């Protein structure tokens, strides 16, 4: 077992810079509080970043892989948060119970929204999905006694007592969620076909259907996945802020996730992770600098525009294409500066 793991690392991870970076990244996230004794503010911000990672990756699964571009992903985020908060308000259960239940409610909402969405595509689908969180927020705002109106539901219990424990809980949830979504969308997998089918639906839905794939079922699966993980992220978000209020349904929230994911690179799991970590942490860093702090959104938008002009496929994808190269014969990934493929010896050029 251990030998196989080491073998995998030696031959599967070390020679591929992208995978090596991913492994180093996750390991450093786990050991960061241990070695440097980071301040509780850093841990708090990183916890937020990890929540947004779950959110962005779930958007990428639904909109990037399956191609159902969702402009209202904040719906799942908000339903997860509000679901968990309402359950706490009316039953008094602990976060460990209400967060998964909130995520399940968001899954249900995902399945309900996909009923009208299954008939639509392209911009029509995007605009339809954009409308759902705005409808729901109006409903929550007008039923003041049920959901607290514009103040939302306050004084939710925190996920864990200390910042450190909270950081680790969220980090573990994030790692597991990203792993699950990565495996689910892995097109080269030998055990599971969903990744390949998601790609097929995005590229050409009619052909996918003609080859005998029940595209409806897989689109529903994509919506349910997006809803579930978006809901988890939203529930964690509500509990870390200890409040679930209408802004979590806002258009800003929906657009933010799109900005992060496209900035990092769509249709890749590492893209949204890189996008959230670069943009979210950059924004937090800029907030500390006196003059730029007021204009940090201007900096952000100019940065995004410039990035898109030079690398329209996203930063992470651009970097990966610079440091990795696929062998034309055996399709194995190599370091870009190798002259010959590490497995079959074919010339790389």
């Amino acid at each position, binding site marked *: 077992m251990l030998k196989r793991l080491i073998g995998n690392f030696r031959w599967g991870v070390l020679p591929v810079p992208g995978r090596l970076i991913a492994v180093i990244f996750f390991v450093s996230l786990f050991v960061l509080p241990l070695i440097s004794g980071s301040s509780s503010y850093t841990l708090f911000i990183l916890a937020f970043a990890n929540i947004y990672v779950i959110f962005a990756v779930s958007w990428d699964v639904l909109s990037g892989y399956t191609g159902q571009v969702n402009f209202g992903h904040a719906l799942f985020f908000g339903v997860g948060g509000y679901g968990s908060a309402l359950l706490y308000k009316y039953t008094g259960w602990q976060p460990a119970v209400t967060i998964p239940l909130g995520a399940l409610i968001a899954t249900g909402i995902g399945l309900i929204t996909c009923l009208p969405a299954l008939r639509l595509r392209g*911009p029509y689908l995007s605009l339809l999905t954009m*409308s*759902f969180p705005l*409808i729901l927020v*109006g409903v929550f705002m*007008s039923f003041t006694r049920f959901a607290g109106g514009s103040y939302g539901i306050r004084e939710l219990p925190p996920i864990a007592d200390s910042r450190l424990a909270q950081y680790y809980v969220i980090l573990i949830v994030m790692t597991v969620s990203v792993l699950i979504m990565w495996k689910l969308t892995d097109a080269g997998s030998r055990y599971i076909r969903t990744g390949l089918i998601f790609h097929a639906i995005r590229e050409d839905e009619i052909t996918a259907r003609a080859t005998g794939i029940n595209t409806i079922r897989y689109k529903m699966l994509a919506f349910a996945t997006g809803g579930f993980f978006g809901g988890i992220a939203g529930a964690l978000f509500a509990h870390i802020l200890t409040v679930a209020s209408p802004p979590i349904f806002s258009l800003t929230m929906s657009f933010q996730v799109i900005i992060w994911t496209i900035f990092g690179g769509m249709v890749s799991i590492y893209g949204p992770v890189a996008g959230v970590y670069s943009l979210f942490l950059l924004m937090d860093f800029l907030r500390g600098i006196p003059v730029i702090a*007021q204009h940090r959104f*201007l900096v*952000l938008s100019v940065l*995004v525009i410039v990035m898109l002009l030079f690398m329209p496929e996203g930063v992470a994808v651009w970097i990966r294409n610079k440091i990795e190269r696929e062998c034309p014969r055996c399709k194995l990934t190599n370091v870009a500066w190798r002259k010959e493929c590490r497995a079959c010896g074919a010339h790389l050029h």
Partner: protein
Amino acid sequence: MFTLILVQTLVNGRVYDLQAAGLSLVFGVGRIVNLAHTAFFVLAGYAMWSFTRALGWGAIPSIAVTVVLISLAGVFAYRFLIDRVRQHAQAVLLITVALAMAIQEILLATFGEYYRTSERLIGGQTVILGTTVSNEYLLVIGVVAAVIIMLWLLLGRTKLGTAIRATADDAEIASTMGISVPRTLMVTMGIATGLAALAACLVGSLWITYPMAWMEPLTTVLTIVVLGGLGSIKGSVIGAYMIALAELLAIQFMPSGPFLAKPFMLLVLVIVLVVRPGGLFGIILEEERL
């Protein structure tokens, strides 16, 4: 009461349909969803405010200069930003959002967060069916009707209009027939932002402008465009009235109306899309059919 609702519906509908027509045109011709469209509307509102209040110009020159400036801004935005990433649909989406955010932040830095209204275009009131209606409302209704008819004539009767419609129909065939597709797109973008600018000039004194004012109308305008069917001017005009009426009825007659106006409006959209997946008058190309 009834007349007031009617006039309000007409005014709001008119303003919405000017914006929606532009957005719909750009989508129909270039398959570009320009999320910065209402940001140009806000930009024009500020230009109008500067010209009428800060510089003290008259109504006609301010409107003319604003419309020309904003059209140029739209053309430049297309030429230097959108055109370069047009192969990547998601990059177009993001670059327009980023552009809207940049406009918002620049406005915020120059003008501050205050609410602004520009100078009134004309004063006075008229009594219609026992209700007093401000002349400004009537002016908006009249001007927009004239502009929509002119737009319709431009698309249907001129060479440029033929080029625009041909590009919308099939860009490849159009380019083999000697139409420069990038140039047509650029001109379309200029017309669209010009229409948004004109809408902003007309309601400059009726609606409040502030740097973040692009997000709220964006959802409304997108709703209208999708409801009417992307790429159809007729659809946007009819959709605009439906949405304006739904919004006003919700505000007037429903409990906690202001909160429910938007949900009610969007509910209309959901119902229309469930019944007709291409909007009311949408053009669905063969390869986009499901």
